[in-house]
């Protein structure tokens, strides 16, 4: 079993309204040092394989096809096991 952790975030060049709203809330609570907030998605995928190399290829394919919309989002992933 390989565990893939996928993180999807709005691209730096694209405004993230959720992040801006949370930053505003943090500022109003007194956490003025928060320069910016980006909010993203965290996904855990358990893959029924032990072949790390092919698992990585498949995860990239999953990200490109479905998990991230590469027009507005970036993704990164980690593999364990």
């Amino acid at each position, binding site marked *: 079993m390989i565990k893939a952790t996928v993180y999807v975030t*709005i691209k730096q*060049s*694209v*405004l993230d*309204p*959720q992040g801006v*709203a949370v930053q505003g809330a943090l500022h109003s609570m007194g956490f003025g040092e928060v320069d910016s907030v980006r909010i993203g*998605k965290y996904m855990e995928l358990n893959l029924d394989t032990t072949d790390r190399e092919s698992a990585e290829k498949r995860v990239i394919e999953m990200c490109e096809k*479905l*998990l991230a*919309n590469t*027009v*507005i989002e970036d993704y990164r992933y980690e593999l364990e096991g």
Partner: protein
Amino acid sequence: MKFAVLVFPGSNCDIDCYKAVEDTVGEPVDYVWHTATDLSPYDCILVPGGFSYGDYLRCGAISRFAPVMKEVAKAAAEGKYILGICNGFQILTEAGLLPGALRRNLSMKFRCHDTVLKVVNSETPFTKDYAAGEEIVIPIAHGEGNYYCDNETLARLQANNQIVFTYKDNPNGSVTDIAGICNEQGNVLGMMPHPERAVDALLGTDDGKRMFTSILNAWRDRHGAASVR
């Protein structure tokens, strides 16, 4: 002329679309389930608003892989008319049939009210019964209607006259006030506002009516039949 209204799990404007076709042009119209694998009998495909697949992951991301979407791509390539409204617009961008993406509204609010649209391009099969530059009132109801595309894509949209509608008062933060765009060929249109909810003065506005008469007239022009008003 035959219309199809696609139905995904979570579509909630499918009945409105169906009724709008019945009430405005009175042409045959069918509901078509998302598992369908043949759209060949239809001349116009309406991709309705709603929350397909619960909008999980991203709006339209999962519907884009429904079996019927392969047929939608095929119909688009054949030059058939495809109109995506609200969630339908999100699905068409996710499917790559239209460029760009829809982001969360800048205000973070779900906006549900009438908007004033400017008809920028009245040459499409969907807008030929409007005048260029005309202002019309069509309601919106969305949380993620903030249209985004990069500068290169925007320049292309502008150069090819693909921006079909813009908002007078931008309600969601869309790039250059974009409310609706079409593909390069002009036979696929996506828009966040709901023309199907604006087909009777009882609803507050009937400015959406002419979208449906436009489609029928465009189709009749192409097929050498008489136009309707």
